Each structure stands twice: as C-alpha cells, then as structure tokens.
C-alpha cells in the first residue's frame, strides 16, 4: 500500500481530513472474483434444468442409506418368524435400538423401564399377547392414543426392526410403571433355525423403504397418526 505518497484531497469536515489513497489491488481482485464466482454459480446451479436440487440430493442420500441398510434385508415379511429371527441378530437389533431411542425413549425411557408409557422390560403387557402384536401396537397405536400410531412415520422394515428391539427388551426386568390391563404373557417362542445364516424370511432384494410391502403396514392416508 502506498504509505509514502499520501494525497489529501483537500476535504475537511470538523477537522477531519481525507486521503485519496487508491484502493488496494487485492481488494479489487477479490471483489471481482466473488462477482465472477457468483455469476458462474448461478449459471451452473440455477439455469441448468438438470442441476441437482435439494430434493433430489436428499433422495439420493436416503436411497444410499436404505441400500446400505436393507440390501441384505429386502422387504421384510411381517410375520412372527421374521420378527423372532431379527431379535436374534445383534446387528439389526442395534438399528432397532437407534430408532427406539429417537422415537420411543421419551415415553418408555432409554432403557425401556417406562415413564409416561409402560415398562417394556418385564413379562407383563397390556395390548400384547404374541410378538407380532408389538408390531400392530406400534403401527396403529393403543390406549386411546396414549400410544401414538407410527405407520405414517416408519416404513414396514423400520416397524419390524424397532418391534424386534422392543421385544428384546423383555427379560431385563427393570422396575417401572405398568398398565391397567396388564397381564402376564407367555415367553416369546424360539426363533426358527436359519439354514443360510441369513435373516429368516426376506423377499427378493427389492430396495425397501419408500413403499413398504403394501400389505398390512403401508402408510395409510386415511389413518391420522393419533389424529
């Protein structure tokens, strides 16, 4: 910068004078660079109809995670055998646990002992007689909406995974609140043998997720979640 030859422009206001130093070159350079960058950015991202949008980027992200998660799983059948075999698979139980913590822990507590919602760790249940009832209660809700319905929020596979985790909480036997219609339920049946080492009864490797299986657990437009 031109420290040596400063030129006062002869302006003086209340004793304040001004130099007429030229603006530094790098200032112009960066300013024009930002303008140029902006022009190119606009052309590339806003004028090209094929440029990725936020929605399409999100869809890609989602598809990638679904693929990673569910390529092996396919679309899970909503039957007892599938549920029981998921309960025996620590990898998929961990996935169910994460969903449980995000969605269920606010009422049933992170360890399942129950707060506003009932204890899930003992042998007593209010609306459940068999493992598959857990899936139904989570999908449709129960007790006048005290248990919200989740079918519009979780897809078919997610319902099965979180149900498997909930079923697996049984046996921890922590103390916690119960329900008025609590009754003791017979132990869960044993999981069927898995000859191929794979999770029980998956369908073809159709990417799971957005559509569910379209049978019993598909998101239903006519059902309002706790509506």
């Amino acid at each position, binding site marked *: 910068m031109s420290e040596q030859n400063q030129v006062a422009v002869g302006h003086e206001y209340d004793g304040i004078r001004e130099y007429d130093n030229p603006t530094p070159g790098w200032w112009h350079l960066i300013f024009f660079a930002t303008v140029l960058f902006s022009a190119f950015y606009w052309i590339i991202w806003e004028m090209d109809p094929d440029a990725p949008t936020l929605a399409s980027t999100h869809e890609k992200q989602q598809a990638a995670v679904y693929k990673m998660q569910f390529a092996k799983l396919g679309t899970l059948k909503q039957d007892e055998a599938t549920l029981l075999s998921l309960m025996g698979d620590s990898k998929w139980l*961990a996935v169910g646990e994460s969903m449980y913590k995000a969605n269920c822990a606010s009422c049933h507590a992170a360890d399942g002992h129950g707060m506003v919602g009932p204890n899930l760790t003992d042998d007593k249940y209010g609306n459940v007689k068999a493992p598959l009832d857990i899936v139904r209660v989570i999908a449709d809700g129960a007790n006048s909406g005290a248990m919200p319905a989740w079918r519009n929020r979780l897809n078919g596979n997610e319902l099965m995974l979180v149900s498997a985790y909930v079923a697996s909480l049984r046996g921890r036997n922590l103390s916690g609140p119960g329900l008025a219609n609590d009754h003791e339920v017979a132990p869960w049946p044993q999981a069927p043998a898995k000859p191929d080492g794979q999770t029980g009864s998956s369908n073809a490797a159709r990417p799971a997720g957005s559509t569910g299986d379209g049978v019993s657990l598909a998101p239903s437009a006519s059902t309002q979640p706790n509506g």
Partner: protein
Amino acid sequence: MSGLPHSSPGSVTSTPPAAPGGIRMDAFVYDDAIVRKFLAATVVWGCVAFLVGLVVALQLAFPAANLGIEFTSFGRLRPLHTNAAIFAFAGNAIFAAIYYSTQRLCKARMWSDKLSALHFWGWQLIILCAALTLPLGLTQGKEYAELEWPIDLLIAVVWLGFFGTNFFMTLKVRRERHMYVALWFYIATIIAVTVLHVGNSLAVPVSATKSYSVYAGVQDAFMQWWYGHNAVAFFLTTPFLGMMYYFLPKAADRPVFSYRLSIIHFWSLVFIYIWAGPHHLHYTALPAWASTLGMLFSVMLWMPSWGGMMNGLLTLRGAWHKVAQDPILKFYVVGITFYGMSTFEGPMLSIKTVNSLSHYTDWTIAHVHAGALGWNGFMTFGMIYWLAPRLFQTELYSKKLASAHFWLGTLGILLYIIPIYAAGLTQGLMWRAFDDAGQLKYPEFIETVAAVIPMYWVRLIGGSMFLAGALLMAWNVLMTWKARPAVYAEPVHDAPPLFPDYDDGVAPASELTANIKTGKKLDVWVKAFWHRVWERKPLKFSLLVLVAVLVASLFEIIPTFLIRSNVPTIASVQPYTPLELAGRDIYIAEGCYNCHSQMIRPIYAETKRYGEYSKPGEFVYDHPFQWGSRRIGPDLAREGGKQSSLWHLYHFYDPNQSSPNSIMPRYTWLITQDTPFSGIQARVRAMAMLGVPYGKMVNDGAAEKAARDQAKAIADDIRRQAGPSGLPEQYPADLENKKVVALIAYLQRLGVDISKPPPAEAGAATASTTRGH
C-alpha cells in the same frame, strides 16, 4: 471545538456570493444536551441488555433460574434481551453519535430542539413498552420484530417523523457544502430502516395487543429475514460505520485512509446487503433460487464490508504508538477487527454447505455475539469514553478504569464466543453423525444438549466479565458527570450560510495519454468527481440510496410473491381449527420459537430424526411463520401425533420428569390459566380477513363453540390415556378450559396434514371441529 477556521468546502474554489459587505456569518450553538441524554440512555440500557443476556444464558445452563415465573421464562426474556441490545443499547448509541457528529459535520444545530426531545423521549417510551409487553407475552412472534402493532406504529412515527425529519432538515440547513462519508451512512440507515420496518411489520390487528402478520409461511419467512438480516446491515452496521468515520479519525487525529474507498464500499454495501437475507433460510421451504441469491450476494458482500474495516484500520497508520496508550483507540482497534472477522465469517456461513452444519446451532449465536459485543459494543464504548469528557466538559474520571474495562471486555468476549463456537460445532456434528449401520449416532436429542451444557457455563463467565466491564464504564461516566461544571459552556460557532449558486468546477481531465477514449473516460470516472457533486445534494443522494435499497429488495420480493410455483399447494393442508389457532397464539406468546424450529430440511440426518422434510405448501395458513432459527430443543414440524396428549401434559408440567436432563423450563401456568375462549372468534375473523378459508366458522359463536368442543374431546382423551387411576391431583378437573389443552391441540396438528387425504368437497374447507382429538 470552538473557533475552528472555516475551510473552503471541497477542492474546487468557488466564487462567494456578491452580498454587500462581504460574507455574512451565521452564529450558532450546538445542542449537546440531547447528546448527553442519549449517552446516558446508552450506558443504562447497555447494562440492562447485558444483564438480561446473562440471565437468559444462566437459564440455558440452569433452567430453574427463571424461578418458575412465567414473566421471566426464557421464551419471553430472550426477545427482551435481543430487543434491548439492538434497539435500546445500540439504538441510543447510534443516536448519540448522529446527534453529536451531524451538527458538527453540517455546521448547524439540529433543525428542531422539539423534534430532538420528542425523538429521545419517544424512543425511551418505545423501550419501556418493549420491556413491559415482552415479558407479558405480547409479541408478533418474528425475531427482532416482536413488538406488537401499536408499538410498531410508535416506532415508525418516532423514527421517521421525529428523527428522520429532524436529521434531513438539518442537512437542508447545513453550512457545510459537502456531506462527509459519515452522513452518507446515516442517510442509508434512516431510509433503509424505515423501508424494512414498515415492510416487515404489516399486520392485521385483532385487538390492541394482538395482530397477525399479513404474510404467511414462505413469504412471511422471506420478509422476516429480508428485515432480520438488514437490521444487522442498517441498524448495526451502517450507523456504526458512520460512527467510525467520525470518531476514529477524531480520536486518532489522523486523516481517513481513502476517500475513494469510502465511496466504493458505501455504495456496494448499500446495494448488496439488501439481497443477502435469504441466507438465513438455506435448505428451508424457501424456493432455491432465492436461497442461492442470498448466498451469492453474501459472498459478494465480503469485500465491501472489508472496505470499511480497511478504511478504519489503515486510518491508524502512523498512530499505532497512540493505540498502546489510549484505551479509546484500543476499543476501536478491537472493535474494527471484530467487524472484519464477522464480515468474513458471515459470507462463509452463507455458503450452503457450511450453513447446513451451522444453521440451528450455537455457531450463529457465537457469530452474532462476535459482531454485537466486539463491533457494536466496543465501537460504542470507544465513543462513550471519547464523548464523556467533552460532553461533561471535564477530564475523564479514570483512564485506568477505562483500560480495565477494555481488558475485561476483550477477555469476556473471547470467553463468550470460544465455548459457544465449540458448542455450535459439537451439536451440529452430533446431529449429523451416523453409525456404520446408517443409523443416527445420537438419536436422542437430549444427548446433544447435555454435551454443550459445560460450554454454557463457560459462556456465563465471559458474559459476566463483559457486564462487569460495562458497569465499570457506567461508574466512570457517572463520576465524570459528577465533576461537570455548574453551567455547561456553550461555545458560539460561526460559519457563512450556503449560497444557492455553486460551481462544481470542471471534472478533472484524464492524465492518460496513450489510451482509447473509453479508457480516458473511465480514468475520469474513477476520480469520482461525479460523486463529489452528489455529496452536496442531500435530496438526490437520499433518493439514490432509496432506489438502491428498493430495487435490490424488489428483485427478490416480487418473484417471491408472484411466482406460483414457489409454493406448490397441497390439497390436504387445511386451516387450523379455532382451538389450534388459540394454541398457536399461546405457542407464539410463550416464545417457543426461540428454542424450537418448525422446519425440517431436506438433509438425510434431519429427515431421519424428525420425519419427512417440510414443504412450502404446508405453511400457507401460518400468519406468522414459526420456522425458528435455533434448535435449543428439537424441531417440532412433525410433532403432531408423535407423542400422546397425556405425555405433552406431563411434559409441560415438568419437562425433566419425562425427559431427564431437559433444559426446557416448566410451564405450570399453562395448566392453571384458562384459554381465552371468548376471544377466539375475533382471531378467526382476522385470519379470514387475511384469506384463510374459515367458511362458516366466522359466524357469531361458531369458532368458540368449535373450540370448546375440541378442547373437551382432547381433555377426555387425556383422561382416558391416563387410565382408570386418573390424572394426578396437580391437574385441574376442568382441564378442557386450560391453556395447555389448546397448546396440545396445536402441537398435535403440526405436520400431520400432509399425510391426510385431500378434502372430498369444497364445503369441507371449513376447519373440522373434531380434528386433533
């Protein structure tokens, strides 16, 4: 100050008027009494603003600090803190600076002492109204524009009617031919703030204390952040640059570094700033083109902002030895440095990918405080220490105390912003962390809150130090005032009035020889002779500023409102029921938007946590929008149906019971206070006026009946959900009458319409009374 020799304005000499007897001289006295008033108000309100900031910061680390009182809960006090800091502290500081410097730069007393007084007392009345209404929960629910419509009207009158008129008339009667750069920035401030305030605050009143924004959803969000960001630009930047241009060369006794730079950075700042607002809405339901414009203009804003910083810091060349000894210059150096840091960080945060991490986190809070404490705070403190001895016509009581203030303040800022930057990064990274199985690593929101609480405690230490410094200043100013003379001297100044004919002289010729014509023209143009002409025409200058502000605004506003594809309609999205509307108003009054967003971004980590991302069509009946800007608690856009109504009831009574470690305060008063059912009809009618299709619900008594029916249904549901043992005794028997039920009705409606079937026939447009049970 007195006896300054009259200097010929400008480099161009001109012929004096042919008045008999030579040049007539006017004698005049500056009005410093008004500056003293604004200075005192700045000191007092500054301490108040910092203290309330400390209280809300404490509440974040320790929620019980609100003492369980509704008037001191975080959601109501946080707007008080921001309003006090911006409009009371910075506002009065701006006025002190403008009233002191404008008179001297114009060689004229303020045009009207009456308007000056009306301005001062009117502004203090506004602050008082804010301090009373915000804790009462009277708010429009838009950040930094919370004040209700009667106060908004008062602001418009005081700002433009009293302050603006007084300022522009002073320009008209000035005796200095050309306007100095500080005055340009004051002009931009007054014009732009008027446009922004009026544009964003348009509302339909329901009663004297309640109104609804005329804009809804996406458009309301756009207008709010067009206003919100330009409040930063034209309330916290341009007037402070004007302040810098006057007080810094005064304090350093050095000429301003570059006249040319001040021209180029002034105009680029004024034109470019206006566009930048949408960067507050990246990844939201705002159309992508607007968001992109917001980002690009923010990036382009970097150098215009740094032009101001350079003109400040480079003015100190040759005076750095003074900085070591003078606390005033120290304040200025640190203040301008923070300005440079903030205006680099701002463009960086506006880049979409950076913003996807920083948005909704404490990073924004740290950024804002680097600017507010560092730039606005320190520039003001420097000005106060410079002004106090001059206004009170004595020595500053203690230079040592001023130095102590500087160090306390500087360390306080660092101890504030460093932990809060860390908190922002920590929480942002935790929100988006996935494990190997593609699951959220921290699925429980509360984990991400617990992680940053220790940093909230450190912030509290920093904030305390900053406040302690301000208190030292208050003491210093008070003691200086005490040593004032019995009667203030009022030196009489003289200057000739401006004569009507003025010859600008001829534009300088180009010194280039070997260039083409265009090159020579450009060479003349950059010498800015044309601008010198503008500088002696305040009306033309002001109109050009107005055009710059309006043109830039309309480029974004017109398409936002007119292009239909911006907000694709969703047939199943219906108006809120009357009870849900009443509940929404409680949500707004309690300031829930200060901690909860209602805007799920199309980012997988976010849809995984909260559900389907928010669509523009979901907000068409939201007057005002409630997207929020910070997630101290989780997003609520899809809260409807996620928890049982019973859970919500328990949670409002004691959040810690149902979510251990929650820092949400208890809302016990919602369980004891009645919903104002009788006022619901008027609210529905006001909404209908704004075009919300309420059908027959506007008929006398219809809305109230519907609201009571729905409240009964929800209360019955809650009792059923509680089971045969019933609700614990702390919950009233007439639960249906209580505010909490209306609020639960609203929360259970959030985000559920999108998964409903569209209404069968046109008649069904009337909001259903049975919804939300």
